[in-house]
């Protein structure tokens, strides 16, 4: 049993390292293809496929929140005068 737990933990760490390598490539301006990345690390295919699917779903669902938090370009130039508080919509 301890051996199984150790194997599982080691596998998790390996998955994390591979995901980190993928994200580092993205951050470096590369556009690694997830499917190619999965194929390259075939032994971890299931975990990597789940990560990419989860990430894509999250990105899609987060879009309305990102839009709510975003500042449109036209608003970046607006200077708010005064500090009057108004709650009218």
């Amino acid at each position, binding site marked *: 049993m301890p051996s199984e737990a150790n194997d599982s933990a080691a596998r998790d760490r390996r998955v994390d*390292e591979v995901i*980190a390598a993928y994200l580092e490539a993205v951050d470096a301006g590369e556009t690694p293809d997830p499917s190619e990345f999965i194929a390259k690390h075939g032994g971890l295919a299931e975990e990597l496929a789940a990560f990419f699917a989860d990430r894509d779903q*999250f*990105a899609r669902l987060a*879009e309305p929140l*990102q*839009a709510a*938090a975003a500042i*449109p370009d036209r608003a970046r130039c607006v200077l708010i005068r005064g500090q009057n508080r108004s*709650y009218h919509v």
Partner: protein
Amino acid sequence: MSGDPGGEDRNLEDYREYLRLLAQLQLDGRLKGKIDLSGVVQQTMLEAYQELPNYQLQDTDYLAAWLRRILANNLTDEIRKLKTGKRDLSRERSLDAALQQSSNRLQAWLAAGQSSPSGHLQRQEQALHLSRALAELPDAQREALVLRHFHDRSLAQIAQHLGRSHAAVAGLLKRGLQSLRNQLREWK
């Protein structure tokens, strides 16, 4: 909307985590721990409960825009207090810059909020649902996800911020997304 806590007021409470997340997204990361976000959100909720009977809000889009406006004003107030009330902080150049940057961002966000609401009901519900799901995550997982997907931070930046290795941050992102999967299943 009524004062019945089991009635329509429950809808207002649904916005708490949404407001908390938006507040976090508007502030420079260097202000973390300097501004009591929970207090700002609580103040926003209190003002909303007090003012709500005076407004005829047409739908949830308008309600969300109205709440964002109150939140932005309260965050601006907190930044102003921090700027003027704690002179020792103003001597710290990075904090001073963070305060100014957040103040500018809030002004622009406030101006953007004066326009008509951009979402429709389903998108608004989606935002609320995701806010609540994120709030359920362990702090480190939530912070890693927010930094990566909302602040566009690199893995190296997140690792430095959290004091963890790149692989450890990748693990936080992976487990955070896994945890969200079931909660978000209904939105697929």
